[in-house]
C-alpha cells in the first residue's frame, strides 16, 4: 500500500510539473505575442506622431515659401499701380538684390520677357496657371526653385513676375538644417518625382546610399501611398541600415515634398525603456504570483493527498472486508460439493468389502481432506482478517487429539518413508478444557510442514506439560524434523501472510502459505507462545506452549500407538427398523447423503424437496421425527414449522421437528428453539451427531441395538467433536459452524 501511494505521489508531482510547464509555455507565448503586439502598436502610434510632427514642420517650409511669394506680391502690387519701365526695372533689381545666382523677370503670356531674363517654356511650365491668377512655386529641373505671382490689371492678369533661385542657393535659403537637431533628424525637400532639391547640410555619399537602400525605398513607396490621402505620413522601417522612422509630407501648391528620417531609438528609445521596465516588473510580479500559487497549490495538494490517503485506506479496508467476505462465501460454496464427496467416500468405506475399492476411496478421501484443509485455511485466514475468529472452548481428552494427529500424520510420513516418532510424557494431564480443535489444527500444521519439507530422516512429536497453576498447565508440543530448515534471516518472517520460502525449490510443495500465519494467530488468541529453532539444511524445531485448564485427574499414561490407516468397519450405534422419519431439504444431494448415512440404522426415510411437499406429507402420514431445512426457497423452515404446528389436519402433529441449518453462528440455536423447533443440527450433516439426535428424539420402543432396546442417554453436548470415528467429518463440521451466514 505504501508503495502504491508513493507511485501515485510521483505521478502526481510529474503531472503538476507538466501542468506548470504548460502554463508557463502559454504565458511565454502570450508574452511574446503581446510583446510584438505592443511593439507594433507603439510603432504605429509613433508613426502617427511623427507624421503629425512632420506636418507641423512642413508649415515652417511653407511659411518660407510664402514669404518669398509675399515679396513678389508686394512688387506685383507696385507694378499694378505703376507699370512704367523704370519702376519695373527698379523692382526687379531689388528682387535680384545683386546676386548672380538669382534670376528675376517679368513675363508676357507667351513667355517672352518684358524685363529681365528669358525663361524657357519648359522651365516655367505653369506660366499659364500664373496667368489665371495663381501663385506658383515650382522646382525647375536643373535650374532651381521658381517663385512666380501674377501682376493684375483689374480682374485680368497683365504680366507674371518671377524669381528663380539657383540650386546652389537652396540649401542655404530653404534648408531645414536647424531642425536637424543633434544630427538625429534628417530632413530634406525633394521634387515629388523623387529628385532631391534641398538636401540637408551633410548630405553625402552615405546618405545617397541610405535613400537607395531597397528596404528604405520600399518604405517610401508605402509613404507615397499613404500620402494619397494624408497630409503627411511616417513609416517604421527595419532595414539593414538600422531601424528608422521615415516620413514625408507634400508641400501644398508646389511640386515639392519634404522627406526625412530619424533613428528609431531617438524617438522610441525612452518609450521602449518604459515599456521594458513595465514588462520586466510585470514579468517579475507574474513569476512571484506563479511561485506563490505554486506554493499554495503544493500545500493544497498535500492536504488533498492526505485526504486521498485516508480515502485510499478506507477503500483498501473495505476492499479487504469484501475480500474476506468473498473468501468466506466461496469457501462455503466449494465446501458444499466436497461435502458430498466426503459423504459418498464414507459410504464406500462403510459398504465396500473390496480392498481395492477401499484403497481408492481412502485416496479420494485423503485428497478431499487436503482440499478441505486448504479451504479451511483460507476461511480461517479471512475470519482472522475480518476479526470474526472465535475460540470454542469445551472439555476434551488430550488422548483423542493425539490419536487424531497420529491417524492423520502417520500415513503421510509412511508414504514418504519418514520415521514418525511420538514421545509423550505419560504424566501429561488428559482431561483438559480448551479449543481442542484449534490445538489440533496448530500441531497438525507443524507436523504437516515437517513432513512436507523433509525428504529423508524423520519427524518427532513431543507432548508434555508444565504446571503453571493448580488447575492450569502449559500444554507443550514440540515438532522436530530433519528437513530443509529455514534461513535465520527468514525465521522472523515465516509467520507472515502468504509467505513461502525458497519458492523455486519448494514449488512442488502445495499450500497456500497461510498455515503458519493462521497458526501464529491462533496461538496468540490462546495466549500461547511459539518458538522456532532451525539450522538451514539440517532441520527445524517448532515448539508451541498453550495454557490449558485441567478438569480431571486422569493422566494420559502410556500411549498405545496402534491407530493407522487400517480401515475400521463402520457399525451403526442403533437400528430402528420401525421408525419413520421425514427429511426436508431443497438440495437433492443433501437428501441423498442424509439417507445414505442413515441407511445402516434401517430407519424408514421419506424426503421432501420443499415446505409445501413437507406439509402435504405430514398431513397424510405420521412420522416419528422430522428434519427440516431452515433455508429453502418458497416456504422456509420457520414458516413451514409454524404452518405445521397450526394445521389441524396433521397426522405428525406431535413429531419432534429438528432444524437443519448451515447458519451456525452463535445465537442461532436459541433463536430456532424460540421459533418452535425442538432442536437443531448443523449442516453438513455429521452422521454421528445425527445418530445421537435420533437416539434422543425417536420413541425409545423403536430403538434397538442388536435387537435390544438401548437406554436413553443424557443430552449430548451438541458441538462435541467426534474425532476418531469419523475423522473427515470433523473439519467439515467445523467449517460449517464458523461460516455460512449468507449463502446457505
Amino acid at each position, binding site marked *: 500500500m505504501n508503495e502504491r501511494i508513493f507511485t501515485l505521489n510521483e505521478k502526481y508531482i510529474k503531472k503538476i510539473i507538466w501542468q506548470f510547464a504548460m502554463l508557463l509555455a502559454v504565458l511565454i507565448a502570450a508574452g511574446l505575442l503581446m510583446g510584438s503586439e505592443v511593439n507594433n502598436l507603439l510603432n504605429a502610434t509613433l508613426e502617427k506622431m511623427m507624421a503629425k510632427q512632420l506636418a507641423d514642420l512642413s508649415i515652417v517650409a511653407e511659411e518660407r515659401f510664402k514669404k518669398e511669394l509675399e515679396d513678389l506680391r508686394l512688387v506685383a502690387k507696385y507694378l499694378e499701380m505703376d507699370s512704367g519701365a523704370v519702376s519695373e526695372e527698379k523692382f526687379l533689381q531689388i528682387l535680384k538684390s545683386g546676386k548672380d545666382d538669382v534670376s528675376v523677370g517679368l513675363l508676357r503670356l507667351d513667355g517672352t520677357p518684358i524685363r529681365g531674363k528669358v525663361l524657357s517654356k519648359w522651365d516655367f511650365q505653369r506660366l499659364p496657371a500664373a496667368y489665371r491668377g495663381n501663385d506658383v512655386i515650382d522646382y525647375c529641373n536643373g535650374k532651381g526653385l521658381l517663385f512666380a505671382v*501674377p501682376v493684375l490689371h483689374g480682374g485680368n492678369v497683365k504680366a507674371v513676375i518671377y524669381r528663380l533661385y539657383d540650386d546652389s542657393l537652396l540649401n542655404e535659403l530653404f534648408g531645414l538644417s536647424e531642425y536637424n537637431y543633434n544630427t538625429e533628424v534628417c530632413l530634406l525637400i525633394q521634387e515629388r518625382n523623387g529628385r532631391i532639391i534641398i538636401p540637408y547640410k551633410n548630405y553625402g555619399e552615405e546618405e545617397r546610399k541610405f535613400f537607395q537602400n531597397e528596404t528604405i525605398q520600399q518604405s517610401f513607396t508605402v509613404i507615397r501611398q499613404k500620402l494619397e490621402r494624408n497630409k503627411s505620413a511616417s513609416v517604421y522601417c527595419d532595414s539593414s541600415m538600422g531601424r528608422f522612422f521615415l516620413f514625408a509630407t507634400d508641400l501644398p501648391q508646389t511640386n515639392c515634398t519634404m522627406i526625412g528620417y530619424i533613428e528609431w531609438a531617438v524617438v522610441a528609445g525612452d518609450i521602449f525603456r518604459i515599456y521594458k521596465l513595465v514588462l520586466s516588473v510585470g514579468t517579475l510580479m507574474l513569476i512571484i504570483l506563479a511561485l506563490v500559487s505554486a506554493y499554495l497549490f503544493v500545500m493544497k495538494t498535500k492536504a488533498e493527498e492526505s485526504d486521498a490517503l485516508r480515502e485510499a485506506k478506507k477503500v483498501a479496508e473495505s476492499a479487504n472486508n469484501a475480500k474476506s467476505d468473498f473468501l468466506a462465501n466461496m469457501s462455503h460454496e466449494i465446501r458444499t460439493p466436497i461435502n458430498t464427496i466426503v459423504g459418498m467416500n464414507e459410504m464406500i468405506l462403510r459398504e465396500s468389502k473390496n480392498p481395492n475399492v477401499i484403497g481408492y476411496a481412502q485416496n479420494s478421501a485423503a485428497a478431499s481432506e487436503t482440499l478441505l484443509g486448504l479451504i479451511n485455511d483460507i476461511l480461517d485466514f479471512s475470519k482472522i482478517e475480518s476479526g470474526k475468529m472465535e475460540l470454542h472452548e469445551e472439555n476434551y481428552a488430550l488422548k483423542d487429539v493425539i490419536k487424531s494427529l497420529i491417524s492423520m500424520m502417520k500415513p503421510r510420513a509412511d508414504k514418504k518413508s519418514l520415521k514418525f516418532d511420538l514421545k509423550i510424557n505419560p504424566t501429561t494431564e488428559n482431561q483438559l478444557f480448551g479449543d481442542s480443535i484449534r490445538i489440533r489444527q496448530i500441531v497438525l500444521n507443524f507436523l504437516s510442514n515437517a513432513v512436507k519439507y523433509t525428504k529423508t530422516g524423520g519427524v518427532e512429536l513431543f507432548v508434555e506439560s508444565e504446571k503453571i497453576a493448580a488447575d492450569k498447565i502449559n500444554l507443550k508440543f514440540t515438532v522436530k524434523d530433519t528437513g530443509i530448515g529455514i534461513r535465520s534471516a527468514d525465521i522472523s518472517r515465516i509467520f507472515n501472510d502468504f509467505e513461502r520460502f525458497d519458492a523455486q525449490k519448494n514449488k512442488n510443495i502445495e499450500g497456500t502459505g497461510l498455515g503458519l500465519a493462521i497458526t501464529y494467530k491462533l496461538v496468540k488468541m490462546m495466549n500461547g507462545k511459539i518458538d522456532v529453532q532451525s539450522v538451514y539444511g539440517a532441520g527445524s524445531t517448532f515448539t508451541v506452549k498453550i495454557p490449558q485448564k485441567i478438569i480431571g485427574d486422569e493422566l494420559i499414561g502410556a500411549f498405545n500407538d496402534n491407530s493407522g490407516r487400517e480401515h475400521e468397519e463402520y457399525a451403526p450405534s442403533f437400528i430402528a427398523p420401525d421408525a419413520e422419519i421425514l427429511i426436508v431439504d431443497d438440495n437433492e444431494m443433501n437428501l441423498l447423503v442424509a439417507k445414505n448415512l442413515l441407511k445402516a440404522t434401517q430407519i424408514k426415510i421419506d424426503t421432501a424437496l420443499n415446505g409445501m411437499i413437507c406439509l402435504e406429507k405430514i398431513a397424510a402420514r405420521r412420522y416419528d421425527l422430522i428434519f427440516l431445512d431452515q433455508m429453502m426457497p418458497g416456504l422456509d423452515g420457520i414458516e413451514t414449522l409454524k404452518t405445521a404446528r397450526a394445521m389441524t389436519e396433521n397426522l405428525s402433529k406431535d413429531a419432534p421437528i429438528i432444524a437443519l441449518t448451515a447458519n451456525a453462528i452463535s445465537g442461532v440455536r436459541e433463536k430456532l428453539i424460540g421459533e418452535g423447533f425442538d432442536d437443531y443440527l448443523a449442516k453438513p450433516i455429521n452422521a454421528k451427531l445425527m445418530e445421537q439426535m435420533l437416539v434422543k428424539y425417536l420413541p425409545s420402543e423403536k430403538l434397538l441395538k442388536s435387537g435390544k432396546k438401548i437406554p436413553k442417554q443424557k443430552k449430548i453436548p451438541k458441538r462435541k467433536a467426534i474425532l476418531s470415528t469419523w475423522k473427515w467429518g470433523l473439519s467439515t463440521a467445523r467449517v460449517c459452524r464458523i461460516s455460512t451466514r449468507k449463502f446457505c
Partner: protein
Amino acid sequence: MKLPSSMNKIHLIGMIAAGFLILLMIVIVNLSDKEEVRQEKIGLIILGDIKINGWNAAHYNGIKYACEKFGLELMVRDNVRENSGQCPAAIKDLADNGASMIFLASYSYSREVQDLVREYPNIAFATNSAEVHGKNLTSYFVRMYQARYLAGADVLTYHQDEDATAQVADKYGVDFIAYNEILSGYSEHYLTSVASRWDLYYYDIIQRYLKGEMNSVKNYWLGIDIGAVMLSEYSPRVTLEEIRQIDSLKQELINDKLIFSGLIYDNEGNIRCEEGEAISDDTLLENINWLVKGVEVLE
C-alpha cells in the same frame, strides 16, 4: 479519489489564464486596428433624384466612385429643393450622422446655408457655386467653358440640369449640344454633349480634403488637361474634318491655352481684356456679368 478534480482545477486555471491572455490580445489587436482606420464620412446634398440621368446621377456616381476609392462612407440626401429649408435640415442631419465633409451640389444651396456653414467649423463644405466663400466653404468646379469652347457655335445648347432645351430643339429640327447627358439615339439633331468627369472631380477634391489642402486656395477649377471636362462621343452628323478641328483645339487647351485672353470686347463694345492679358480665374468665376461681343439675348 480526489486527484482528477485537482488536476482539472489546474487545467481550469490554465484555460482561464490562456483565455484571458487571448482576450487581451484580441482587445489590443482590435484597438490597433481601429486606430488604423480613419473613418471619414462624406455627405452629398443634391437637388434631384440620384437615379435620374443627367446632373444628379452623374454627380452621385462620381462621388460614389471617389468615396469607394478612399474607403469612405457616403451619405446622400437627394431631392433637396433649393430655398425651401430642406438644405439646412439636410446639413444638420448629415452633421448629426458624423459627416466630416459635405458637398452642396446645387448652385443656390451655398447662398441659402452660408450662415449655417459657419456653425460647423469642423466640417468642410464644398460647393459648385463661386458666389459665396467661407473659411470652411470651398468653391469647386470644372472648367466647363473649355468644353463649351470646343463645342463651337451656330447650334443650340443649354446649361441646366434637365433636357427641356433638347426636347424643343428636336421638335424644331435644330441641331443641339446637350449638357452632361449622352442623348445619342434620342434625337437626330443631337451632336454631342458637354460632359464632365465627376469621378475625377470628386476624387481630386476629396483627396485635397484628406490632405488638408482645402483652404490653400479659394476656388478649385479642374480643367480639360486632367480630363475633368470633355465632349462626349460625337453623333454621326459631326464630320471627320470637324472632329480633327476640335481635336487640335483640344490639344491647345491641354497645353494650357488660355481661352479668356487677348483682346476681348463685350456685346456693348467695351474692352473686357486687353491684348497680352488674361482674365483671371477669380474674375471668371465671380465677376462675369457681361456677354461677349456677338451674343444676342432673345427674350
